[in-house]
C-alpha cells in the first residue's frame, strides 16, 4: 500500500504556555518548543504499521517553511520511507481550503492508495483531511481509531464517536482518513534513528513545481481569515491558592470537607 501522511510542525501544547502578543497579531513564538503535531505522529505510526503488514511505502508531506524539515526528518527516523516539503511564500495565510489544494497537488504527483492526516492540529480546526478528500473526490472518514486492511480494494475503519462508542465502516480505496490519538503506540525515535536519516535529501516543491495556481492558495485564495489572536475575557475563574505544598494541602482539606469530598 502506498501511503501519504500529512504532518504539521506545531508548538507542542503540553510543553508551552501560549501568550498572545500585545497587538494581537500573533502568539509569542520566540520561546516555543515545536514538535510534530501529536495526531500526525499517530498517523505516521499507523502508516508504518500498515506497510510492515502488507508492504508498500510511507511518504510524509508537510506544507510549511524550511523549519518544518525537522519534523519530516523525525518522522522518517520513525520509519517513513520518503519525505516531501511543500514550501512557497505564496502558501502563507492559506485557509483550510488552500492547504488542502496544495496537498491535493502533492497527492496527485504520486500514486497513493491511502492518505492519512491527523484528526486536528494546533488550531483545532479538524478540516484539512475532509477537504483534501473532497478535492481528490475520494471517500473520507474522520477521527479514525482503527484500521484493518482487507483485500486491497477496501479497508475497514473504526471511528471514535461520542461516548466512546466506535462506528465501524467499510471504505473503498483510495481514501483519506483523519487519525485520532490512541489508535496505536507511536514508537520511540532515538538518536540512532535520527542519525540514520540526517543526510537524506528531502525534496522541496513550490507552487510552480506542484502546478498550483498561486491565486487559489495563501492569503489571495482564502475565504476565511484570522483577524487576530486574543485572550478571552476571564470568567470568574478559580480562586487560586498560594503557599507551600503543606499550606495549600491544609486549605484544600478544609474546602474538600466542606464540599463533601472527604469520606
Amino acid at each position, binding site marked *: 500500500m502506498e501511503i501519504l501522511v500529512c504532518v504539521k510542525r506545531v508548538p507542542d501544547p503540553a510543553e*508551552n504556555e501560549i501568550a498572545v502578543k500585545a497587538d494581537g497579531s500573533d502568539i509569542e513564538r520566540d520561546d516555543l518548543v515545536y514538535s510534530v503535531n501529536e495526531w500526525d505522529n499517530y498517523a505516521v505510526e499507523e502508516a508504518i504499521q500498515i506497510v510492515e503488514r502488507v508492504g508498500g511505502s510511507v511518504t510524509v508531506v508537510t506544507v510549511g517553511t524550511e523549519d518544518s524539515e525537522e519534523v519530516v526528518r523525525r518522522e522518517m527516523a520513525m520509519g517513513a520511507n520518503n519525505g516531501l516539503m511543500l514550501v512557497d511564500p505564496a502558501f502563507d495565510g492559506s485557509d483550510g481550503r488552500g492547504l488542502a489544494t496544495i496537498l491535493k497537488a502533492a497527492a496527485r504527483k504520486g500514486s497513493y492508495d491511502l492518505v492519512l492526516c491527523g484528526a486536528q492540529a494546533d488550531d483545532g480546526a479538524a*478540516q484539512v483531511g475532509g477537504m483534501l478528500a473532497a478535492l481528490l473526490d475520494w471517500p473520507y*472518514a474522520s477521527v479514525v481509531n482503527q484500521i484493518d486492511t482487507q483485500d486491497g480494494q477496501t479497508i475497514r475503519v473504526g471511528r471514535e464517536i461520542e461516548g*466512546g462508542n466506535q462506528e465501524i465502516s467499510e471504505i473503498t480505496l483510495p481514501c483519506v482518513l483523519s487519525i485520532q490519538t490512541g489508535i496505536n*503506540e507511536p514508537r520511540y525515535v532515538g538518536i540512532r534513528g535520527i542519525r540514520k536519516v540526517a543526510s537524506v535529501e528531502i525534496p522541496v516543491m513550490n507552487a510552480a513545481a506542484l502546478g498550483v495556481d498561486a491565486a487559489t492558495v495563501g492569503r489571495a485564495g482564502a475565504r476565511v481569515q484570522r483577524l487576530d489572536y486574543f485572550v478571552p475575557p476571564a470568567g470568574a475563574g*478559580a480562586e487560586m491558592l498560594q503557599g507551600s505544598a503543606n499550606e495549600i494541602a491544609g486549605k484544600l482539606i478544609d474546602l474538600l470537607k466542606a464540599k*463533601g469530598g*472527604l*469520606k
Partner: protein
Amino acid sequence: MAPPLFAFVLHQDGKVDDSALELVAAARKIFPDASPIAIVTGAGASLEAACRAAATSYREVWKFADDALAYPNAETIRPLLLKVLPKGCVLLLPHTTFGMDLGPGLSIKMDAAFVPDVVAIDGLDGMTITAVRQEFNGQASSHWACDISQGAVLSLRPGCFAPDESRSASGQVVDRSAEASGLSARRRFVELVPAEVGDVDITKADVLVSVGRGFGDKENLAIAEDLARAMGAVVSCSRPVVDAKWLDKGRQVGTSGKTVKPKVYLALGISGSFQHLGGLKGNPFIVAVNKNPKAPIFQVANVGVVADVLELVPALTERISKAK
C-alpha cells in the same frame, strides 16, 4: 439580501440532539430575525418523532426518509445536501464527530467558505461573518472573518450557544424524501461497537480524583491512587492518559469517554480541553492543579493551584491520612 439559512439537526431514538436548539440560537447571532430551515434525515418512526420535535423550534423542517439514511453516514448525506441546498446558502452544523465528518468536504463541494468549531459569533457585516474560535487547546482565542458571498458552512461547538426556550415555533414538516432516493457512498456503515464497560463505573462516583498528562509517567499514577484511597474517591482520567495506555478507556471523562456528575472533581495535571469538560456535568466543585497557569481548566475550576501534581498530591494525601 440575507442568504437562506439551514441547520442540520441530529437525533437519536426520536429525540433531537441538544445542538438543534443551539443552532437556532447561533443563527440569530448572524441574523437577529433568522428563521433557519431544519434538515432532518433518517428512517422510520424515530425520524417522524424527531421531525415533530424539530418543528417545535424551527418554522420549517425538511424531512428526508430513506433506508440508506437510517444511520447518519456523512458520506451518504453529503450528496443529498448538495442536491437539495440552494447555492449560496449558509449551513450550520454541530461540531460533533458527525459535523467533523461532514463539514469540511461539504464546504469544498458547495464551493463555500468553512469555519469549524465556532464558539461565538460577533455578527454579520455586509457579507462577512465574524466568528470566534479557540486555538492551542483553549489557551488562545481568535476572531475569523468569513466571506459568505458564495455560501458558508459553520460548525458550532456544542454548549456554546444558549438556546432561547421562549421562542418556540410551530413549524411545518415538509416531506422531501423523494429527493433522497438512490443515494450511495463509497463508505458503508457496518456496525456500532458500544463503549467498553470498565472495572469501575466512574459515572456513579460522588468524588473523582481525575488524572491527566501532568503525571508524566504511568508509575506516577500510584500517587493519585493513594490520594483517592485516602479520600474514599474513585480515579478517573483525561484522554491522553488512555491514549498512553496508563488507564482503561472506561476511566476516561469527556465527550469521547464517559459523562460524569460527581459532587467534587479533582482535576490533577489536566489542561481542561473542551472535549474533556464536555463530559463533566452537574456543576461539581472543581479543584484544579496544573503547572501551566494558562491551562483552561482554571477558567472553570472553583479552586486552583499552580503546582506540579507530583509534589502537591503526596503532601495532600499525607495530611488527609494524618487527620484520620
